[in-house]
């Protein structure tokens, strides 16, 4: 095989006119090879937390339906399972799978092998240790008392340190880039490398109290979405949609505007979690204005993603990645518009404090981010494992369970939450009426959650298969050379 060996020096720059002995496919394959192990490590641990976190989430949901269920032991009380769910799916699943996607994407977009991969291993270990330590602490009742910041400081420290090692590798790769232009996904990735460590550290300093701490709490929580989770999702969507369809992004220039509008406005949203609360009115108003102004970057993204897809919807039939990612990008538009409206005082008067907020949150982190991450895994894994997904039917099952589950979840919680809020605001009704009215919707939510869990089990199963190159051999886009013999003779493992 005429494979160019990977050296520590960057490849010949594509900007020069030097004769290109190395074909682009070879370059791509070698970049993929440089990241195989770290990416698989991130994905595998992320998927492990996904299973654990989905189980915790389902348990929490069922406790609304059957409050006595597992009610005898303190470790499994709702008040502990609920933060376990939130922290494992966010800092476990979404962050780790997101990191895996970003590592692979950075290599591809910088057209260079990922640098300092040792740092990625260190990062993955520290990060997972941090989440593990944090989760065990939560089961034992150690909780810092603030939403999204429940983990005790040592766990948070491990996570922050893990992120720094990860950022070190990404930025080192960026510095060795072989491209002149930075693709839009890289803007989001690089921005988050700088944003998230600062955000996470400042939030964990513990230097505030009282209502200022509440302001800090929700500045953090919403900014975590703004500077880490959303950029991860958008970086993925901006790459996978045009790549899979085979068409460039509709209005790339608009993407530039969208990025800076995003950076400018999203940072100010946080206090919309405290509308009506004991904070200066101007502070709340500033966040409401910023939340509504998000319309601008969200529309820029929507134009780019949806108009690129327009006219190519039949490709959704054939590409699993496209299905998941387009679902995700549509959810992004929906959840962002929903959020802008939700922040308005008149809407918030009804929806605040209800399950509506929970529905909105899940549309964002599941409908948008997780679906895009699923699509990313389905795209990336064959290219680094050099093995195709063995059972396409299982991918379809995963998709419909996840899509159906989240649709049921969000619709149930938004309708149920609105009814809950309306009844809470009716003083002629006793408070318990608002609780009773939501019960059937909470059952629907549990059904949705079960569907999602089934999808995740199917996903995890097939992920294990592809790592071990099990199942029927199928044509793989990442193979450096097509090897017809193996597939034709029915061998199930490549050399």
């Amino acid at each position: 095989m005429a494979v160019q060996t990977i050296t520590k020096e960057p490849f010949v720059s594509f900007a020069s006119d030097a004769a290109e002995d190395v074909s682009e496919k070879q370059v791509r394959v070698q970049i993929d090879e440089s990241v195989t192990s770290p990416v698989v490590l991130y994905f595998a641990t992320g998927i492990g937390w996904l299973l654990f976190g989905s189980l915790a989430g389902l348990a929490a949901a069922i406790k609304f339906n059957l409050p006595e269920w597992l009610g005898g032991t303190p470790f499994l009380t709702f008040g502990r399972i609920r933060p376990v769910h939130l922290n494992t799916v966010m800092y476990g699943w979404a962050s780790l799978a997101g990191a895996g996607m970003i590592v692979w994407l950075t290599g591809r977009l910088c057209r260079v092998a990922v640098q300092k991969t040792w740092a990625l291993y260190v990062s993955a270990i520290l990060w997972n240790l941090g989440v593990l330590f944090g989760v065990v602490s939560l089961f034992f009742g150690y909780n810092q008392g603030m939403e999204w910041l429940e983990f005790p400081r040592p766990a948070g420290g491990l996570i922050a340190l893990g992120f720094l090692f990860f950022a070190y590798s990404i930025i080192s790769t960026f510095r060795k880039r072989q491209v002149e232009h930075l693709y839009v996904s890289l803007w989001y990735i690089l921005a988050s490398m700088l944003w998230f460590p600062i955000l996470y550290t400042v939030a964990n300093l513990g230097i505030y109290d009282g209502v200022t701490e509440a302001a800090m709490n929700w500045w953090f929580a919403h900014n975590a979405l703004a500077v880490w989770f959303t950029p991860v999702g958008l970086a993925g969507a901006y790459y996978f949609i045009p790549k899979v369809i085979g068409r460039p992004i509709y209005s790339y220039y608009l993407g530039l505007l969208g990025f800076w509008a995003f950076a400018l406005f999203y940072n100010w949203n946080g206090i919309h979690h405290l509308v009506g609360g004991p904070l200066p009115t101007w502070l709340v108003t500033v966040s409401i204005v910023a939340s509504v102004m998000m319309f601008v970057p969200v529309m820029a993204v929507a134009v780019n993603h949806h108009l690129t897809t327009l006219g190519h919807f039949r490709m959704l039939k054939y590409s699993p990645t496209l299905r998941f990612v387009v679902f995700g990008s549509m959810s992004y538009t929906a959840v962002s518009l929903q959020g802008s409206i939700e922040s308005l005082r008149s809407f918030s008067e009804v929806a605040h404090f209800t399950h509506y907020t929970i529905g909105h949150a899940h549309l964002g982190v599941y409908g948008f981010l997780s679906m895009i991450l699923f699509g990313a895994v389905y795209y990336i894994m064959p290219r680094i494992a050099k093995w195709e997904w063995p059972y396409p039917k299982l991918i379809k099952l995963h998709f419909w369970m996840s899509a159906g589950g989240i649709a049921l979840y969000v619709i149930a919680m938004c309708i149920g939450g609105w009814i809950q809020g309306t009844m809470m605001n009716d003083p002629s009704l006793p408070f318990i009426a608002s609780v009773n009215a939501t019960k059937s919707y909470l059952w629907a939510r549990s059904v949705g959650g079960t569907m999602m869990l089934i999808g995740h089990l199917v996903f995890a199963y097939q992920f294990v298969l592809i790592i071990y190159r099990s199942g029927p051999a199928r044509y793989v886009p990442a193979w450096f050379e097509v090897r017809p013999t193996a597939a034709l003779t029915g061998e199930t493992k490549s050399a």
Partner: protein
Amino acid sequence: MSLPVAVIIIISFVVVAGALTLAGFVWAVQSKQFSIRQLNEGAKQIFDDDEPIGVPQDMIFKKPSNGSPNHH
């Protein structure tokens, strides 16, 4: 700090930051750092000769029309 002072500080920040950004943008366009057309070229960066524009990737639910070995 009273409310009016805080408001003045915040609004000054935003105005100054916005003005600087706008100035930077105007400078960039005028000194020909980029043109709109050149900006849009960036969209093509994710394609290359091997995975060019116009060829969809990842259509694994579809059987390819040529005779290459493929999924069951």
